């Protein structure tokens, strides 16, 4: 134990000194330690104190000789390299030529790999997780959406719809609405506007869903309006646009849902429900992301009884009964606190 500690503490010394005397010092320490141990505990204790103090003081003494080393460097004649800059280290030795070559090759390889990974990510817009982290794959995708859809990345989601942008921060389940009109522009432009907005408005307001009023007096009405626009299922059911799904609207939910079935295949896909458009992703990624999207939003999760990420014809028919299960206070209608994603629930 003491030998291992001593060897470790030798790293206090400059590398050049260590390479010259390190092994020798450790060897002598080992012999002296055996001798001290054979004399009994008081000698062993005195030995330890003396050795470790001496080691520390020796290192300090050597390190304080650095000005001399710098002086030597400044006064030593430097080789003339025409036009090639030279540089010095503070250590009193020069690295081997082989080490410099190896370091250069490693640096170039690392730089190349990082550049390739970055370019791949930019071109594919999909950052895959290593095997064994499949649970996070859906959370880690960056997906370009259409005019209305969700952009999921990390544990957060971004939605753009009708020129408004919603940022759902998964862990905190907070949201911010940003006006990015005019509508219909590419998400990349929307995103750049958001970045600009965050830069000019560092005091951006975060509105926690489920609360009646956000910070600085911003009502959740604005957030609710954007949320209803971002989730077409809610927009279709909320016929009177009061952000509340009344008993009558619940009863008419099946018809409202069927109106969203644009391709008339008898079911609603996650995309038709406002989910992400995945132009470059493989089928597995699409499935995982759609499931994550549907599970995150309480209304969609309730409607999707078989948890396949889609709302089938039978699930649409059964919508009124399913929606009523969300009515926790049994007042016959669904209010914001029963519809909005719960704080603290991550996107997954």
């Amino acid at each position: 134990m003491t030998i291992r500690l001593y060897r470790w503490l030798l790293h206090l010394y400059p590398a050049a000194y260590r390479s010259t005397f390190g092994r020798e010092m450790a060897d002598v320490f080992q012999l002296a330690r055996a001798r001290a141990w054979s004399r009994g505990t008081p000698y062993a204790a005195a030995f330890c104190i003396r050795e470790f103090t001496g080691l520390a003081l020796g290192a300090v003494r050597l390190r304080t000789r650095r000005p001399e080393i710098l002086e030597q460097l400044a006064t030593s004649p430097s080789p003339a390299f025409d036009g090639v800059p030279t540089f010095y280290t503070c250590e009193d030795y020069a690295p081997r030529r082989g080490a410099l070559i190896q370091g250069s090759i490693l640096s170039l390889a690392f730089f190349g790999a990082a550049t390739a990974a970055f370019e791949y990510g930019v071109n594919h817009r999909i950052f895959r997780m290593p095997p064994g982290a499949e649970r996070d794959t859906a959370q880690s995708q960056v997906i370009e959406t259409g005019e209305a859809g969700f952009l999921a990345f990390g544990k957060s989601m971004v939605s753009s719809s009708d020129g408004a942008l919603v940022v759902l921060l998964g862990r905190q389940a907070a949201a911010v609405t940003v006006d990015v009109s005019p509508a219909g522009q590419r998400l990349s432009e929307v995103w750049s506007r958001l970045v600009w907005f965050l830069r000019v408005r560092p005091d951006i307001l975060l509105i926690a869903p489920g609360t009646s009023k956000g910070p600085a007096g911003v009502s959740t009405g604005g957030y609710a309006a954007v949320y209803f626009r971002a989730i077409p299922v809610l927009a279709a059911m909320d016929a009177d646009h009061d952000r509340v799904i009344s008993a009558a609207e619940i009863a008419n939910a099946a018809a409202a849902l069927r109106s969203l079935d644009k391709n008339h295949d008898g079911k609603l896909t996650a995309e038709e429900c406002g989910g992400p458009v995945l132009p470059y992703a493989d089928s597995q990624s699409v499935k995982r992301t759609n499931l994550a999207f549907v599970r995150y939003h309480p209304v969609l999760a309730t409607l999707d009884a078989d948890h396949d990420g889609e709302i089938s014809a039978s699930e649409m028919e059964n919508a009124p009964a399913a929606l009523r299960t969300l009515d926790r206070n049994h007042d016959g209608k669904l209010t914001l606190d029963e519809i909005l994603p719960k704080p603290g629930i991550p996107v997954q």
Partner: protein
Amino acid sequence: MKITSSSTNPLSEPVLLILLSLAEQPRHGYSILKDVEEMSDGRVVLSTGTLYGALGRLLDDRWIERFEEQEALRERQAYRLTAKGRTHLQAEVARMKQLTRLASLRISAKEA
């Protein structure tokens, strides 16, 4: 020429003892450590860090040199006094002799 403190100032006791140890015969680190302790009757016990700090400075000043002992382990380098080191040691001993003589004279004069 770089002038170091060790080449101009009186030697410290540990350094003097290390040089005296090597004056008799070449030694490796642990042998120097034990010899210094024996020469001083256990009064000067060097730590490994102190010993190699002193050896490093003496090597820099070329008062001692390293060499590999025949049939020794690779890390058991041995040290021996150089001609320059021996000269400086003799000068230091002479200085001490003179100091001792002077001290004896002064003390005896006072007693008389």
